[in-house]
């Protein structure tokens, strides 16, 4: 059988659509240049960086005790954080889905799920140090413990768990809601106790989902740069070791090889998560719940669970609130009152805060529409069109999800500081705002693409086909049908990209040059120097910006969003 004619015709039809062809070509070029190439150059560097091909660089870095220690440290932290986050996330999800919560507790849950989205990644490290450190409000002034050391393993574990468990909570909540209540009712009906129902029905159904949540957190934890940087002390993880290797030891080949090691770990985890667990989760929990769940009213269950979770939530919220308050203390660790606005004033008068905010804001503002549009285009191509390079586009844009920011940062340094393959071509973009924008785009692309793909899968394929059939070309179809139908997803992608960009640090800290000041980098610097009040002041303003962006988006969607009245259909 020869399918050549059909394939040739499909190709001809595609070529008859110049906008589409251009888009695909540009997209492939972009993905290759800014995702594949930097990773490839890391491989090249680590195998031939010292002049001859071989494993000599790997042998060298594995002989460094600091590096092997960093590997075990990273895995130890990732493992514990993954387990703790998944379990705490499950507890919150279970309580929200199964227990009738009062308004107050419900509100707390919502805030907790929101906070990590709008705040920069290392805020909790700051408040951890301020609350529980040597000069911490709680440890020193309430409990009179004078030598509490928050730096190191437990500091990272606690901070990362508090940062990542809300993500698990949101993931598991969605899955629990999909469990058909009649399954559990059947078990109850046959005589199982509530505990037995949980262990014999709910938990087994949730296992793949829990595994999924664990791995996602594991990857996040391994890739996390800012928290280990601030609260890790001498306890180095892979991300910080790579950073120090390149900024402190100027060992670029060594850093590249380390980045390859880190990348291999996250890629392996990602492969398991994506191809094994995700499929399994979907297989066990697909159907929609057939009816409304009977919520647990039993006070002996309800009250302790609600109190426990509410206290936890309050604690997390307090950690976040600590940041703006910390920015108002006159002298951290000595004088707490009267509260002062001098740090905020100093941010702008002494430390060029205005420029930092302007740079961060403008670069993120440029990056977010590009990211949002790009991810919608990729989703459209992946879900609705068929062409040869589709698999490549999908795979590479998802691959970016598994690449830790630090790895990408090192890849960009190696890949662009001397031009493409060290030839000087494109060298011009290194050190400019452009490369920062590109990093922002690449870092946010996977999330946007993911949400775009799931939004597009909801839309009947024949709607676009009908427009095509009526005479619209691909560009027209995309602009008049696809985009309006996924407007909400586009808008939220816009804001997510903005928030992610303005709070990003791991990759940009390696790429930023003195001509650009980024808020997150400033916060990191002041925190390193121990100037916590200034760091808090910067962080507070940042949170205000991101939170306003999210609020604005919600307002905008409420007013102009289409999906709501479409969903009633």
């Amino acid at each position, binding site marked *: 059988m020869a399918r050549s*004619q059909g394939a040739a015709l499909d190709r001809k039809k595609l070529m*008859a*659509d110049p906008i589409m062809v251009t888009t695909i070509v540009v997209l492939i070029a972009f993905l290759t240049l800014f995702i594949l190439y930097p990773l490839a150059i890391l491989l090249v560097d680590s195998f031939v960086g010292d002049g001859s091909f071989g494993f000599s660089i790997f042998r060298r870095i594995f002989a460094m005790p600091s590096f092997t220690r960093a590997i075990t440290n990273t895995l130890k932290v990732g493992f514990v954080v993954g387990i703790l986050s998944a379990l705490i996330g499950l507890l919150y999800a279970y309580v929200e889905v199964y227990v009738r919560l009062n308004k107050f507790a419900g509100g707390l849950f919502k805030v907790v799920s929101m906070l990590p989205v709008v705040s920069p990644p290392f805020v909790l490290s700051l408040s951890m140090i301020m609350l529980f450190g040597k000069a911490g409000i709680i440890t020193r002034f309430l409990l009179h413990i004078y030598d509490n050391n928050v730096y190191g393993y437990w500091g990272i574990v606690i901070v990362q768990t508090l940062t990542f468990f809300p993500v698990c909570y949101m993931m598991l909540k969605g899955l629990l809601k999909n469990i058909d209540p009649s399954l559990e009712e059947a078990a109850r009906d046959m005589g199982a106790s509530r505990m037995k129902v949980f262990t014999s029905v709910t938990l087994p159904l949730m296992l793949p989902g829990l595994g999924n949540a664990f791995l996602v957190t594991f990857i996040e934890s391994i890739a996390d740069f800012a928290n280990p940087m601030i609260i890790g002390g001498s306890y180095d993880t892979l991300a910080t070791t790579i950073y120090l290797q390149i900024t402190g030891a100027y060992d670029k080949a060594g850093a590249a090889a380390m980045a390859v090691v880190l990348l291999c770990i996250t890629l392996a985890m990602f492969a398991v998560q994506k191809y094994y667990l995700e499929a399994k989760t979907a297989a066990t929990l697909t159907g929609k719940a057939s009816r409304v769940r009977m919520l647990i009213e039993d006070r002996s269950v309800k009250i302790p669970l609600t109190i426990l979770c509410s206290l936890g939530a309050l604690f997390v919220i307090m950690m976040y609130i600590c940041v703006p308050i910390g920015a108002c203390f006159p002298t951290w660790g000595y004088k707490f009152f009267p509260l002062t606005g001098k740090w905020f004033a100093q941010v702008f008068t002494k430390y060029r805060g205005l420029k930092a905010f302007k740079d961060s804001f403008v670069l993120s503002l440029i990056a977010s529409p590009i990211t949002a549009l790009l991810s919608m285009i990729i989703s459209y191509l992946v879900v609705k069109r068929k062409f040869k390079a589709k698999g490549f586009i999908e795979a590479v844009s998802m691959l970016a999800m598994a690449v830790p920011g630090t790895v990408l940062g090192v890849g960009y340094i190696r890949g662009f500081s001397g031009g493409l393959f060290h030839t000087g071509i494109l060298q011009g973009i290194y050190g400019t705002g452009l490369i920062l924008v590109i990093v922002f785009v690449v870092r946010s692309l996977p999330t946007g693409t993911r949400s775009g793909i799931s939004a597009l899968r909801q839309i009947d394929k024949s709607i676009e*086909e009908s427009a095509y*059939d*009526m*005479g619209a*070309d691909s560009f027209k179809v995309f602009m*008049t049908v696809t985009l309006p139908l996924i407007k909400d997803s586009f808008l939220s992608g816009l804001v997510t990209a903005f928030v992610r960009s303005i709070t990003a640090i791991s990759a940009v800290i390696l790429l930023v040059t003195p001509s650009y000041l980024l808020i997150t980098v400033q916060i990191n610097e002041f925190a390193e120097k121990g100037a916590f009040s200034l760091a808090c002041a910067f962080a507070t303003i940042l949170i205000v910006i991101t939170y306003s962006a999210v609020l604005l988006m919600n307002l905008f969607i409420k007013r102009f969003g289409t999906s709501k009245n479409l969903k009633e259909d």
Partner: protein
Amino acid sequence: MEKVKKGVRLDHISKIYQDPKTGKEFYAVKDTSLTIEPGSFVTLLGPSGCGKTTTLRMIAGFESPDEGEIYLGDEPINELTPNKRDTAMVFQSYALLPHYNVFDNVAYGLKLRKVGKDEIRERVLKILDLVELSGMEARMTNQLSGGQQQRVALARALVIEPSVLLFDEPLSNLDAKLRVSMRTEIRRIQQEVGITAIYVTHDQSEAMALSDNIIIMNKGVVAQMGTPQEIYYHPVDEFVADFIGEANFLRGKMTGRDGKQVTLDIEGSPLQVEGKDDMEIGQEYTLVLRPEAATLADEGGLPCEVVLSCFMGSYQNYHVKVGDTLVKLEEHNPKNKKIYAVGDRCSLVFDPRSVHIL
């Protein structure tokens, strides 16, 4: 619509798909040649997986044939993208644009063709009048019933005045009653406009009610093409006979010939029917007998035994055994007729002219 009517011609069309599980390639449509006359209403009918929808989607341009050429009128259209083809499709799911109201949905194709504003308004209103949706222009599509959505989809396809109208099982999402009234409606509109229409369905009564010609497809090939009467009374094989209406198959060896009349031995009883020229004595043949063409009597036909007797209102439903062959029949208007009970031995009687030899 002063446009010259165009027909559609498929010239040795094949489409090969790959089974996603086994990776094996198979023909979804195999070496199919068809001619659809301008202005006619043709139905592609067949069980699911027979290739009818694939054929339609190749005509629309969504799929590309792996072999052969498709012509619209005299023009080969293989290389044209769907938006460049002079066809319009009515989708199974209606596929209305949910963010547009009725008017904008219908006007969509005209706007793409850069038709002037006033003319758009005029043509949209005229077509909405034709599908009896006047006054509904401002409604959003999710405020319409299924039947109304179907009419919008039809209006949207008609308004761009395509040469060929394509229907992909458009009525399958409607309830039974609405389905019947909508199909009359579709036929009326097609006749009024005089447009060439190709209609895919798996519902034989829909095909019967709508079509000038029916094309029966099975396993990727055309089993038979003809008017509804031809297909019902003269099916070419058992598949067609069985697929259209109910059919009983009586098998027998030919034992003699007398001019046009041949004698067949059916389960030990001789049966005289009008034969075909190429029939030979000693060969085995299959007869098609429609359930409504036979009746039961005490004697005078093929001896049989009743195994099911069931009152259905307008008819009495019987299953009888003639030898080892099960025959289903419908005795219409059974009120003043003798009703046979299960276990009765009687005779299967029919007019020899009403059987068809395969």
